[in-house]
């Protein structure tokens, strides 16, 4: 049988190889030759007779061909690893973004289903979700907060005076390069001046190459100051001859978002005509809560951080939505939908769009969400709750979300397109489908408060802005909801074509998506993605780029990688480093789902042997993590290669745990849950900490945790929570430092790694929570 197979195999190889000079020396043909001489031996390239044969037949030509063949395979495998690594980062990041959506889902869920059993809890919720999230306009205009702030004599950082001069801005760049920090007084002053300036500007900014000879467009920076400094170094500082447009996402993730903002705003004040900033989806206080800007500001400015954040929130709302160059090139952050309405975009009151994030509405009304409620697995859609996403006052939707029945919640209507962000009746592009029927709440609120003018439909305007800030291009035709991001859409080539024709444009420049080369053309070169944060995931992971436009409007791209180290690494080393980083994240995720994984593995192990095939492993892991990763390709890095294609899953999970974390006092299952939800927890705690003090009271902690756990179906006893809280509150003052709390998870010691359900804390809550159902995990 074996012989027959070998024979068949060899013959088919011979058939498929086409004649070419170096093939004679090639092992397969050699095997064929072996076959001719003696039909039985199996082909074994390592056999001595073969080696001898090869050395006599080799020439330099054949040797070179062999080396090349081997080398190309090696490089291909490297490339594959690089792609896989990229996929890991992307899927984890998108999963994180979806977490964000889930987080808001959670709040909505609470509002819908949580029936506070006590006034205390009702007040808590009210207080969390309906606090004034914005200042009155008049309060903003006061703006004299900073004048009272004293700058100490020993302050050695940069000092600003207004009106700003170019030298000041340049000095700022230099100061930040030297890692100095700008004093809060100057920060606030700068922000006030910035706001004053931005208020006068239109939504769509127009630039002309008549004035500046060249215009440089930069994409996402995400707090990476090195890249900004590099760009100025390589391309030159802004000047009347050198215009710049920064296309959003200046902040979050990187550690120097504040510094970038200061520099960008300073140059904008100095060169108002030549230096423009578009708003990105990260110029948004709700997003900042989760992705780092809030944390950074509070960390760097402990006393005045709160003030800074409030003003910043306002400044973000005043940023341009788009920039038009010579009426021909449109620059905006995300993309467009299939119903772009630049006229509407130009007219709407951009200041009203506080956030493009989902925000929960107030307590009270339970009409909504029934139809629109997404099942757990589906990716939620971004839905506006105008009274919190939008400012009150001049443009309808009066309620500021005070307590009591006056607050009308928005109704995410059932979507006309599946997965689409549902819109309310008012001005909805899709067929209005108000579940409650009748008047959309927007108008309802208006009439109730007797508030003024119905201008253009808010929802429509809001949606336009969401589309601009969140959409991504796709290769397929059409336009569909962007389910990965939860907002905006995926737009195809014809949508771009439509847009360009409608407004007589040449092409579109956008950012929003990281690209390995820092830029990418698509839609037949009508759309250019430009991304300026190099090494975004990790050193060596990607290049950054910026694009220059001259009067001919031909895009000229410059790429870079703002890390000297990278240049010295070979591709192999670069890939290894990035891969390590990606794998670490993946390990974390795997660990965080240990219990679920164990459950899945057991399903594949009906005979309870403790073993599963590697194929089953891949299936199980995907079904738990939903990351859509090519697990079989990643297997070598995640599983110690077992010879017989099986895996002892329990010990694999134990190894995971040992690698990750452990804790003396707290049960590992609770820990695992907390760890898995860490990003959400962080965001929740920051929201809870409404005065941005960095501290929350024990009571707030308990309340928040209880609410959270009821939604996540986590069964934790009150005692457990109290223990947890108390163990974190080291100085026993009744307050928990959020940062310490979160840090604790990174360095905990392990007590037990048992994954069996018997170790799970049982739910015995029958008191105030009114939520948990006793169920085993």
């Amino acid at each position: 049988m074996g012989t027959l197979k070998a024979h068949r195999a060899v013959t088919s190889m011979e058939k498929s190889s086409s004649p070419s000079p170096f093939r004679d020396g090639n092992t397969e043909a050699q095997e064929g030759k072996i076959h001719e001489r003696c039909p039985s031996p199996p082909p074994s390239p390592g056999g001595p007779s073969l080696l001898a044969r090869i050395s006599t037949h080799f020439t330099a030509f054949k040797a070179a061909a062999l080396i090349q063949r081997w080398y190309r395979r090696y490089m291909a495998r490297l490339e594959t690893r690089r792609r896989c690594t990229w996929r890991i980062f992307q899927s984890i990041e998108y999963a994180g973004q979806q977490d964000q959506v889930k987080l808001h889902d959670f709040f909505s869920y609470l509002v819908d289903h949580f029936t506070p059993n006590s006034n205390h809890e009702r007040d808590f919720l009210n207080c969390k979700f309906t606090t004034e999230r914005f200042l009155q306009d008049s309060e903003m205009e006061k703006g004299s907060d900073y004048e009272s702030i004293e700058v100490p004599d020993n302050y050695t950082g940069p000092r600003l005076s207004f009106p700003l001069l170019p030298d000041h801005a340049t000095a700022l760049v230099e100061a930040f390069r030297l890692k100095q920090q700008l004093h809060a007084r100057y920060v606030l002053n700068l922000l006030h001046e910035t706001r004053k300036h931005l208020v006068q500007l239109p939504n769509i900014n127009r630039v002309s190459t008549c004035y500046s000879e060249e215009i440089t467009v930069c994409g996402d920076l995400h707090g990476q100051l090195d890249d900004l400094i590099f760009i100025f170094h390589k391309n030159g500082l802004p000047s009347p001859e050198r215009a710049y447009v920064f296309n959003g996402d200046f902040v979050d993730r990187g550690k120097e978002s504040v510094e970038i903002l200061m520099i960008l705003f300073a140059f904008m004040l100095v060169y108002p005509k030549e230096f423009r900033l578009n708003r990105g989806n990260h110029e948004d206080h709700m997003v900042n809560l989760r992705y780092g800007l809030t944390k950074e500001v509070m960390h760097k400015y402990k006393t005045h951080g709160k003030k800074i954040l409030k003003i910043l929130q306002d400044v973000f709302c005043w940023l341009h939505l788009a920039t038009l160059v010579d009426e021909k090139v449109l620059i905006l952050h995300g993309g467009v939908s299939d119903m772009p309405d630049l006229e509407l975009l130009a007219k709407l009151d951009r200041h009203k769009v506080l956030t493009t994030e989902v925000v929960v509405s107030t307590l009270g009304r339970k009409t909504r969400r029934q139809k629109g409620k997404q099942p757990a697995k589906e990716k939620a859609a971004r839905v506006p709750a105008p009274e919190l996403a939008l400012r009150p006052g001049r443009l309808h939707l009066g309620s500021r979300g005070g307590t009591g029945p006056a607050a009308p919640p928005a109704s995410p209507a059932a979507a006309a397109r599946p997965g689409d962000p549902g819109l309310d009746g008012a001005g909805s592009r899709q067929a209005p489908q108000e579940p409650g029927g009748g008047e959309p709440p927007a108008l309802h609120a208006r009439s109730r408060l007797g508030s003024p003018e119905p201008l253009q439909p808010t929802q429509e305007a809001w949606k336009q802005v969401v589309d601009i800030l969140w959409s991504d291009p796709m290769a397929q035709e059409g336009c569909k909801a962007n389910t990965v991001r939860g907002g905006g859409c995926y737009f195809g080539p014809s949508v771009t074509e439509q847009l360009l024709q409608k407004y007589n444009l040449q092409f579109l420049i956008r950012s929003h998506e990281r690209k390995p080369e820092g830029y990418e053309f698509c839609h037949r070169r009508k759309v250019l993605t430009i991304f300026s944060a190099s090494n975004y995931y990790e050193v060596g992971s990607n290049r950054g780029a910026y694009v220059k436009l001259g009067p001919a409007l031909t895009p000229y791209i410059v790429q870079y990688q703002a890390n000297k180290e990278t240049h010295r690494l070979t591709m192999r080393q670069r890939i290894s480093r990035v891969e390590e980083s990606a794998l670490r994240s993946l390990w974390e995720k795997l660990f965080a789902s240990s219990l679920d994984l164990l459950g899945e593995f057991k399903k594949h192990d009906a005979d309870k042997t403790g073993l599963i095939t590697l194929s089953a492993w891949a299936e199980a892991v995907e079904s738990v993590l939903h990351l859509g990763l090519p697990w079989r390709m990643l297997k070598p890095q995640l599983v110690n290669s077992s010879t017989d294609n099986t895996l002892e899953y329990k010990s694999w999970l134990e190894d995971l745990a040992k690698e990750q974390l452990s804790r003396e006092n707290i049960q590992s299952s609770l820990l695992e849950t907390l760890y898995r939800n860490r990003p959400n927890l962080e965001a929740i705690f920051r929201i809870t900490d409404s005065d941005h003090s960095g501290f929350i009271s024990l009571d707030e902690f308990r309340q928040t945790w209880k609410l959270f756990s009821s939604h996540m179906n986590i069964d934790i006893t009150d005692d457990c929570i109290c223990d947890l809280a108390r163990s974190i509150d080291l100085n026993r003052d009744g307050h928990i430092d959020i940062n310490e709390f979160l840090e604790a998870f990174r360095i905990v010691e392990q007590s037990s790694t048992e994954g069996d359900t018997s170790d799970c804390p049982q739910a015995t809550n029958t008191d105030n929570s009114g939520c948990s159902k006793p169920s085993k995990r």
Partner: protein
Amino acid sequence: MADDKEREGTELVIAEFHKKIKDAFEVFDHEANNTVDVREIGTIIRSLGCCPSEGELHDLIVEVEEEEPTGYIRFEKFLPVMTKVLLEKRYRPIPEDILLRAFEVLDPSKRGFLTKEELIKYMTEEGEPFSQEEMEEMLSAAIDPESNSIRYKDYIAMMVVDDG
């Protein structure tokens, strides 16, 4: 009976191959529409453990391309061809000792190394020549800057990648 078992065994093997091939394909399927750029096919095939020459690769591509080449390869066409390749264990990787022997052929005086110029000459003029990019990349990792040469034994040892 033995035949049935064998058939079942083969079916399992084929099913496993299918999953492997699908995973590898998906890594390069950027638009999630079951197609990949034809220029990536070589990388995919190699990532599955095969080590074809450029000529053999070209032949494979011809097999999986559309009647009128679109620049894209569809999964439906790729899968059966690739499965066959895996089943037949075609294009096996080159064992280290053979590789070493190949280097030694280029170094007849057995110095244990090749100079940078020699390496460039062989890789860009003989066999299936490297592109400039490929050459540069190889040089950056292989050449010892002090001696400006490649000690090929060490180089091979450094570059050996685990076959997952």
